[in-house]
């Protein structure tokens, strides 16, 4: 049943031009950065004479592309997640889901999954794009996989938070702005506490946990952080919707 909802969400994403446009624009942006990365690689590497300064093309191009991807997703995800629940509230279609034989958990997880699947298209696209380097070079697939996993977990966390803010209001724009601000704060939290790396607040930063994936390291502690982050916001969303049913 979760998949029925996810399918419905995906379908509605592609039923309007919105989904296609966002997909096209983002792919254009990632493609541009990929090209720039490849071009710059030769310039930079021919300038660095000592072997210690040289490093692989995967890391060089990957850094650029994944760096910009995580930043662009910060804008893209709230745009996509804002309408998930608030749009249904506004057009009064919630009763359609509530009176179907579905639990609230299935509805929320289904919607979350629908969005993550949509974003997974982008993650997959980036991975395939980087893999094309393999044609004339020998690339580090481990690095690409670690980055893909990291990016997927990052956008999944964005989506969970966006879904929660979407459940708070019936104005998609308000939901979008609120989730953008919240994500932005969470992203740069570690910059605020850069002077004191042991500070507990800096551990809450999404970016800090993405860093190890960006370096090619899959750390279970970071996976646990993202999983907890997602579960927390999905639970909050379910509780919010349950309150609707109880309070009316």
């Amino acid at each position, binding site marked *: *049943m979760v998949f*029925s*909802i996810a*399918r*419905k969400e995906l*379908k*509605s994403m592609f*039923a*309007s031009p919105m989904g296609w446009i966002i997909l096209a624009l983002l792919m254009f942006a990632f493609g541009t950065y990929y090209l720039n990365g490849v071009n710059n690689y030769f310039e930079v590497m021919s300038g660095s004479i000592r072997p210690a300064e040289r490093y692989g093309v995967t890391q060089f191009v990957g850094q650029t592309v994944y760096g910009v991807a995580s930043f662009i997703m910060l804008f893209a995800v709230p745009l996509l997640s804002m309408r998930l629940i608030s749009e249904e509230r506004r*057009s*009064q*279609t*919630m*009763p*359609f*889901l*509530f*009176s*179907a*034989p*579905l*639990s609230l958990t299935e509805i929320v997880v289904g919607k979350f999954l629908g969005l993550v699947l949509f974003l997974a298209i982008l993650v997959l696209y980036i991975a395939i794009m980087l893999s094309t380097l393999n044609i004339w070079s020998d690339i580090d697939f481990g690095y690409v996989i670690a980055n893909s996993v990291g990016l997927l977990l990052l956008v999944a966390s964005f989506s969970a938070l966006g879904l929660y803010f979407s459940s708070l209001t019936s104005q998609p724009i308000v939901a979008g702005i609120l989730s953008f601000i919240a994500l932005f704060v969470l992203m740069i939290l570690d910059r605020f506490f850069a002077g004191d790396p042991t500070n507990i607040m800096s551990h809450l930063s999404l970016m800090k946990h993405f860093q190890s994936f960006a370096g090619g390291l899959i750390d279970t502690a970071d996976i646990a952080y993202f999983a907890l982050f997602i579960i927390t916001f999905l639970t909050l969303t379910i509780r919010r919707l349950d309150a609707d*049913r*109880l309070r*009316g």
Partner: protein
Amino acid sequence: MDNLTVEAIELTRLYGGRAAVSDVSFNLAKGQVLGFLGPNGAGKSTTMKMLTGNLAPSAGSVKICGIDMMESPKEAKALIGYLPEMRPLYKEFTVDEYLTIAARLHKVSSKHIKKAVESAKERCGLSHMSKRLIENLSNGYQQRVGIAQAIIHNPMVVILDEPTVGLDPIQIRDIRALIKEIGQEHSVIVSTHILPEVEMVCDHVQIIDKGKLVFNGGIDVLKRQRIGNKLLLGFKQPPTESALLQIPGIAEVEHVDGMVRVRFTEGSNPNEAIVEASVKEGWGLYQIAPDQTSLEDVFVQLTYQEAVPVEEKAA
């Protein structure tokens, strides 16, 4: 007992201390069509939301075919088809896409989805609209899609909140026929504020006012209330009241806008006597018809009858 499809037991819903619905209890058996009447804000929609599990009751419980809505909502909801007051349509989809989603969410097995969609479209007269975007359909057709969505999984109980609002007379007739047809195998609850509609499709009526059930009974009881023992007469040369009162059976005479309204005693049938007298005396009778009270009158009567004992208690 096995025949009961809907059991509402002392349903109460409070909104910030104010009771929108209080102590509403009723049963509905298989094959019955229940009409739900009431003025605006009486609690019709709130009751329906509670029946369908969209709203948790503050007290009381709902059972669908013996399954408790609070304890096992999934099983209970699978037996219900619901069309809320505001049509829950995803306007970016075509009719086919939307109905397929509805069928899938209501756990119609994937083999039967196509068939279910086709039959729902056919029953609601939507077959030629399959590929149209819901957004581009007229109000009436959108309403039909809403109804199709509610019956797609062949539910035991169909709950329709004001299904004929915004439809043209021909569509209204079709929808009423459809409701009657569904009502033969399943149970239907229809809310409305059009009394003739209730008379046409329902065999059971409930009137709710200020959150309380004020009338619950068969349609014939309501019909009797509505028609009453009154005749409306039109005379070219109106006779005197006493002349009319001499006709056996007539108990009361009243003048209204150039017409005469007479009330006759229960069981008597003075129509023929009035015509005869008119011919004999030359009153020039040009109209004789049963005087039907409007919904408002029946409504006022019913709410008034119920209000009296309350006042007595207060005094």
